[in-house]
């Protein structure tokens, strides 16, 4: 064990020596936060980070349920996966699809858009549903090759629909109808509780709860695995040594950058170096992260249990109703760790964030108590 620890120490030192994060790259590394007003850095951060006016939707204004698990932007339409149906917002009105319409289950956990066809895929607590031109076709573990009815994640790439379920991943080829299952028998997956999936033409990533990140190479058909080098230890021995934690919840692969959310912090991986984000050394409001959406190689949004967080590669912004009194809050943390409160009048519907999608400059946020539309404001 001592030898292993030494090896980790050495590797950590080496990584720290060569990692771009250690060379002044625009990544926040400050270990402490200070509330500061008027510094040059904080002023720049304030200017750089987006501000929104949040309009919130609840059952009071048309949403079928306040528990919103997922949100999807589809052009001018917004899809919201709620605990009580799939709602679509179009022309300023909500319409809800239920099991009576063919939805696999009333609780919709995940959403994905096939940009080529316009079809929407919904992962539910009772199977996978395809919404196409108003028609819903559902796939369950009894009626199809779907591995399990609890579908936490779904992602569309080309003619394949990739699915994350409570019993492994699977892939539906929409052209042939063939299902291929991925589990502990044919992948390096230890646990089979897959929480999220992000599919691209080159790679497919699964966030496996308790088993890190699984990577599928579309060209070779081979699987690889990324785990927390500290194993099940809750202590991070060396910063940025690898994936922050085994219990991954969400994954987003964009511009060849892997963004990972876990219940114990978040990670960014560029194919060579890892960079981890914890509350103690970043602007994350909480290490308990439900969702991550990468914008590009440097920017990402994080949905935590203590608010919505944005990282622009250097600075952080957090948007949330106050955990103390529920009043709208926005805070900005610059690369030096200076935290600046920003006066705002609106905030997401709730601090517990479950899903995020972008609509141009606007943002849509699924929360535990409603769906929020963040309308970008000029600064």
């Amino acid at each position, binding site marked *: 064990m001592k030898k292993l620890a030494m090896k980790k120490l050495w590797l950590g030192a080496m990584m720290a020596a060569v990692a771009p994060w250690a060379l002044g790259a625009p990544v926040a590394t400050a270990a402490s936060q200070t509330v500061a007003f008027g510094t040059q850095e904080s002023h720049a951060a304030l200017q750089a980070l987006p501000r929104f006016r949040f309009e919130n939707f609840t059952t009071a204004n048309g949403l079928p349920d306040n528990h919103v698990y997922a949100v999807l932007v589809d052009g001018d339409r917004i899809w919201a996966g709620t605990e009580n149906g799939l709602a679509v917002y179009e022309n300023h009105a909500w319409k809800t699809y239920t099991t009576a319409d*063919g939805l696999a289950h009333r609780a919709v956990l995940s959403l994905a858009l096939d940009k080529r066809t316009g079809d929407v895929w919904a992962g539910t607590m009772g199977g996978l549903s395809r919404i196409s031109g108003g028609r819903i076709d559902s796939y369950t573990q009894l009626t199809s*090759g779907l591995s399990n009815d609890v579908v936490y994640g779904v992602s569309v790439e080309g003619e394949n629909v990739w699915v994350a379920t409570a019993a492994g991943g699977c892939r539906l080829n929409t052209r042939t109808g063939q299902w291929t299952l991925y589990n502990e028998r044919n992948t390096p997956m230890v646990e089979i509780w897959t929480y999220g999936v992000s599919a691209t033409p080159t790679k497919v990533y699964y966030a496996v709860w308790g088993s890190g990140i699984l990577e599928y190479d579309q060209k070779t058909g081979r699987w690889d695995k990324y785990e927390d080098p500290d194993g099940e230890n809750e202590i991070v021995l060396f910063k940025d040594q690898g994936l922050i934690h085994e219990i991954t919840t969400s994954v987003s692969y964009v511009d060849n950058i892997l963004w990972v959310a876990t219940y114990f912090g978040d990670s960014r991986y560029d194919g060579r170096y890892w960079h981890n984000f914890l509350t103690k050394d970043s602007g994350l409001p909480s290490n308990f992260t439900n969702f991550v959406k990468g914008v590009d190689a440097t920017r990402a949004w994080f949905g935590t249990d203590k608010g919505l967080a944005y990282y622009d590669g250097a600075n952080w912004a957090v948007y949330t109703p106050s955990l103390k009194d529920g009043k709208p809050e926005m805070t900005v943390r610059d690369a030096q760790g200076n935290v600046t409160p920003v006066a705002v009048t609106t905030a997401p519907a709730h601090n517990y964030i479950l899903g995020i999608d972008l609509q141009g400059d606007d943002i849509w946020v699924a929360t535990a108590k409603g769906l929020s539309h963040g309308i970008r404001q000029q600064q």
Partner: protein
Amino acid sequence: MSERIRTRWCVEFAVLSAALLTFALWPVVNHPVRADESDMQDYASPLEVLSSPDGARLYVLCQQSEEVRVLDAASHAVLKNIAVGRVPRGFSLSAAGDRLFVANSWDDTISVIDTQTLTVTATWPVGAEPSSVVTDRAGKWLFVANRISNDVAVLNAQTGSEERRLLAGRGASYLAISPDGSRIYATHVYPNPARVRSNLENRTAPESEITVIDAERAVVVERIPLHAIAGVFHLAFSADGRLGVAAALHPKNLVPLAHLEHGAAFADTLLLFGADVGQPVEVPLDELERYASRPFGVAIAPDKSRIYVTSSGSEMVTVLDVPRLMHFIHARPHAQPVSFARDLAASANYVVERIAVGHDPRGVALASDGSRLFVANRLEDTISVIDTRDLRVASTIALAGPKTISPLRHGEQTFYTSRYGFQGQIGCASCHIDSTFDAVTWDLEPDGFGRDIVDNKSLEDLRGTEPFKWNGANPNIPTECGPRTEKYFWRSENYDNATLADLAVYVRSLPLRPNRWRLPNHELTPAQERGKDLFERAQDKFGVPIPERNRCSYCHSGPKGTSQKSFDVGTRKPTDNTGLLDTPHLTNIALSAPYLHDGSARTLEEIWTVYNPEDKHGRTNDLTKDELNDLIEYLRTR
């Protein structure tokens, strides 16, 4: 000549005549079981017809001779025969008329024909069983309806590269573009899977749709729901785009088929949609004791005065007066989609003529001025030319081909006509669409409401799969097609021996469609190979020997996957008279959902995930989900 010589000569002549007659009739009375290959290929079998934009040419799609015949529209002389792919099913012209696209349903290709040179300039691969093709006005996209893959493929109209597949109705088959070019409309011949399971499992009315595609963006923007419809064929639009029509079958499968009075098996209908009618309307083409069986091709006069519909089983064209039809509809205001399918008095309000044409009339085309209607008589090798002013057949264009009717051809005509059905209501092809199946479960026999529900099996490659009927009661095709059909279905005229023999010849000759799940080299994918091992295994996963009768490969043995014996696989319902069921063949099993004798399994998976709790239908409950998927992947190759 002496009396003796005369007598001897007469005797010899009589004997010789009898011998010649016997020889001539030998194939008929002795129930020939194998059709001559050449016999199958001599006929043209025109399925569709098109008029060129300038009206100078007729293009005739000949399904059996697998060619497009180009005729001079005035003289009817053949300008050229252009060979295309296997079993072509649909074709259309580009907006400019310079290219003709042909959907080859067994090749899974599109033939592109240059209409200047009348040559095939390209052959493009598409999805499974392409059945119709249409291009947008701009010539950007080519839309192809694929019957087996249940989708509409979107191809680059210049290069043929496939850009995407759009989910369509099950058995997507016919396409039409709206007059303004903004929308593509797609129909399908098999009902969509039931979205929500009812308490009665397999006893749900079929649901279909018209899929509406944005022609520019090439995405589905709407699905017009069609309740209680199973089988929608050609569509047409009025020139102003305000009225759309589609030919449809409306099965009445939820009640016992105990009698056929008053159209008890099917309503043959026309679906109307668009601004002229508001919510969709279904109107019957039938009238009391006169039925318009199996509507297929449709056209609307350029001045929107009339609608023409071919009735393939009734061998006629039904003519509807549009103003009278609109009056009928608007006199019955409706805020929701409405059907008058059960009203056999309705058609008297708007049907103005029924024009007899040839065997199995299918596609139609109007001359650009609307003065003539061309009707492709598939099983007569003719084109009827109807003068639309006086609504009579002005002439009949005979396509080159055999002038005699072979037993096989006669059998096919018998299969596709409804003339033997009670009052001409139904024929074999009413349920066996294009000689396959209809994906509908039926309550066939007069044994009480809801008893012995049966799924409609496909007819492909039946030789060696006897007996027939789910309880195995019919030992051969003549019994299946003869007394059974006559008793339970037709309740009318029976076949004479020769006709029955020819029908049996035809049914036995029905070929096997290409299997789309097999690799071109006939090898199996790793998943299929694993599934094959499971299919053939003799031990379960715990090493316990599986009794022979409980192995997949025991009951589903032989090249067609049937031991031709009956077994109780634990699927008997309280409403079934017996649990002992004939082992169905596995030929192209992937295509013919639903499954089990009563269609209660909506998918192959459900056979084992829902309906095999005691492992009576093979030992499967030891399998993991991925192993079951492998087994199904193998079954799809059968």
